[in-house]
Every structure is written in structure tokens, then in C-alpha cells.
């Protein structure tokens, strides 16, 4: 009976270790240059980024945090704005339709969504389009209570805990840039998200 219980305990421990182990997430960046016909893919395990970023001590980046000069913030309390966005319902917050640019900022399904279309080069080069989808949990982690720093490590940690997301796409006449997170170690094309 004792032996049976011991075996049971070992099985339970192994089971909990197997199911409790978090799945590794990868940050993927893919740049496709249409004129050079060149594709650059970068795949970084988020756990690696979480270990490496705090070790970088260069310029304004130290201990995984980027210091923002007070002058750069121009008395804008970003934290308060994020807090307000976090507590607000889904919806469009900013919509600008200008001669050169269209900008749309919205909150949707727990994500901060930013779409920018640059129309200034549209006639000669086809313009450029930027779409950013970032989980609110990541945005919140980026900005800790001290409004003069950006916490990259906390953001990476939040990113690894968030679902798989297509985060950034940039498209212009020469380049296509895609940044996304998923559990695939390879750089397979992300499926359409959001």
C-alpha cells in the first residue's frame, strides 16, 4: 500500500511538472524587402530575452529598464493615460483623417490597437501602413509606477503570459515587416490574428 502511494505521488509530481511547465514563446521578426527580394527572419525565445535584457547596461537601458528624460515626457502622465485606457470599455479613442496621414487608436478585446496610414508618399511609392496590436497587459507592464522609465523585462514577461498575437505589421513600397509572438520556434508565417 505504501509503495502504491509512493508511486502515485511520483506520478502526480511528474504530471504536475509536465502540465505546469509553461510553453516557451518566441518573438519573431520578419522583414521582407521586395526590391532586393531578401527575407530576414529573427526568432528569439522570450525566456532568453528575459535573461539577456537585464544584463544590458548601455545608454538609457539599465537593469531591463529604459529611463525617459523628464523633458521627453513634457509633463504627460503616460501612466495615468494608460490607467484610464485600461479601465475604459472597448472603442475607438482617436481617429484622425488628415491629408497626409490617417491615424486610428482603439481598444479592442484587451488589446491596444493603432493603425497609421501614411498617404504622403502614396502617389509615387504606394504609401505606408503601420498596424500595431499590443495586449493591454504588456502596455501596462511597460509603464511601471515610476513614469520616467519603461520596464522592458516586465513587458517581455507579460508578453510571454499573453496569448499568441500578431503585434506589428509595417508595409510600404519596399519593405514588409511583421513582428509576432507564438509558441513556434521557426519563423512560419503568422496566421491572421485580430
Amino acid at each position, binding site marked *: 500500500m505504501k509503495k502504491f502511494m509512493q508511486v502515485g505521488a511520483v506520478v502526480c509530481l511528474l504530471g504536475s511538472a509536465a502540465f505546469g511547465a509553461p510553453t*516557451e514563446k*518566441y518573438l519573431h521578426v520578419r522583414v521582407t524587402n521586395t526590391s*532586393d*527580394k*531578401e*527575407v*530576414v*527572419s*529573427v*526568432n*528569439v*525565445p522570450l*525566456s*532568453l530575452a528575459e*535573461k*539577456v535584457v*537585464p*544584463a*544590458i*547596461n*548601455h545608454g538609457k537601458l539599465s537593469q531591463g529598464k529604459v529611463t525617459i528624460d523628464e523633458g521627453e515626457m513634457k509633463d504627460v502622465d503616460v501612466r495615468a493615460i494608460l490607467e484610464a485606457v485600461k479601465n475604459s470599455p472597448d472603442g475607438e479613442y482617436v481617429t484622425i483623417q488628415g491629408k497626409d496621414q490617417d491615424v486610428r487608436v482603439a481598444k479592442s478585446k484587451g488589446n491596444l490597437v493603432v493603425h497609421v496610414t501614411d498617404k504622403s508618399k502614396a502617389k509615387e511609392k504606394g504609401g505606408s501602413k503601420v498596424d500595431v496590436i499590443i495586449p493591454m497587459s504588456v502596455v501596462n507592464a511597460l509603464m511601471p509606477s515610476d513614469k520616467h522609465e519603461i520596464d522592458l523585462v516586465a513587458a517581455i514577461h507579460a508578453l510571454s503570459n499573453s496569448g499568441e498575437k500578431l503585434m506589428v505589421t509595417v508595409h510600404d513600397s519596399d519593405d514588409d515587416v511583421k513582428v509576432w509572438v507564438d509558441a513556434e*520556434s*521557426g*519563423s512560419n508565417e503568422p496566421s491572421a490574428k485580430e
Partner: protein
Amino acid sequence: MLLVGKILLGAAGSVVAMGAMISSEGFVNVKVRETKPDGVHLHIIAPVILMNIGLHFVPQRNLKNAAEQVKPWLPVIDATVKGLKDSENVQLVEVTGPDHHVKVATDGGYMVVDVTDPGDEVHVALPLSEIDRAAHEIAAAGPTL
């Protein structure tokens, strides 16, 4: 006869021990193939320990500049190597062009770099731990801060 046997056994044991020591830290694998008809084909598989020994013979003055550049980044190199060792095999970078292909990946504790262009094919595989060790070795050659 018994004495000869003992000597042979001792020699064989020494050879095995030396082989085990040499191979314990892994191997560096470098393969270069020029694709032109009379091109060079080079394939070197060398024990990492030889690379370490070789590094000791490089005059310190030649490593001074490299040491100054490497030293501030040692914590980053340490963290990267440790992180890569802890991670599963991953293809870190891939560049694909019309006539070239570059791949940087980790595979079984090795950093593997493959470069293919119209003139050459190059393959380099180096144990991750050796990158860290070599960086520290080079940094140690510089002036102490």
C-alpha cells in the same frame, strides 16, 4: 611478457584518457567549400581544447583591442549563452536572398552558422560554452579596469 602487457595497457589507458579529455569539451566543426570547379574544400573538426590552448599563444597586444570591446559586454554574453543553453534548439536568424542564404541556429548545445552564396558554402559549429569561455579569455587579455 607480463610487463609488456602492463605497459601496453597503461599506454592504451593513457590514450583513452587523453581522448576523453580532448573530446570532453566538444569539437569545433568548420567546413568551407568553394563552389568554383577548382575551388577549395576544407573540413576541420578540432577539439575545443586546442582552440583554448591556441588562444593562450596569441600575443596579448593583439587581443588588447578586442578585449576592450568585449569586456563591457561580458554580462550580456554570459546571459545570452546561459539563456541559449536553457532554451530548446532555435533558428535565431535566417537571411534568404536571391543568391544567398545565411542561417544562425542553436543545435544540441552548439551555435551553428551556415552561409551559402554563389561562390562559397561555409558551415561553422561551435559549442555554446566555448563562446562564453573565449569571450572571457579575450577580455582577460585586456587591461584590468
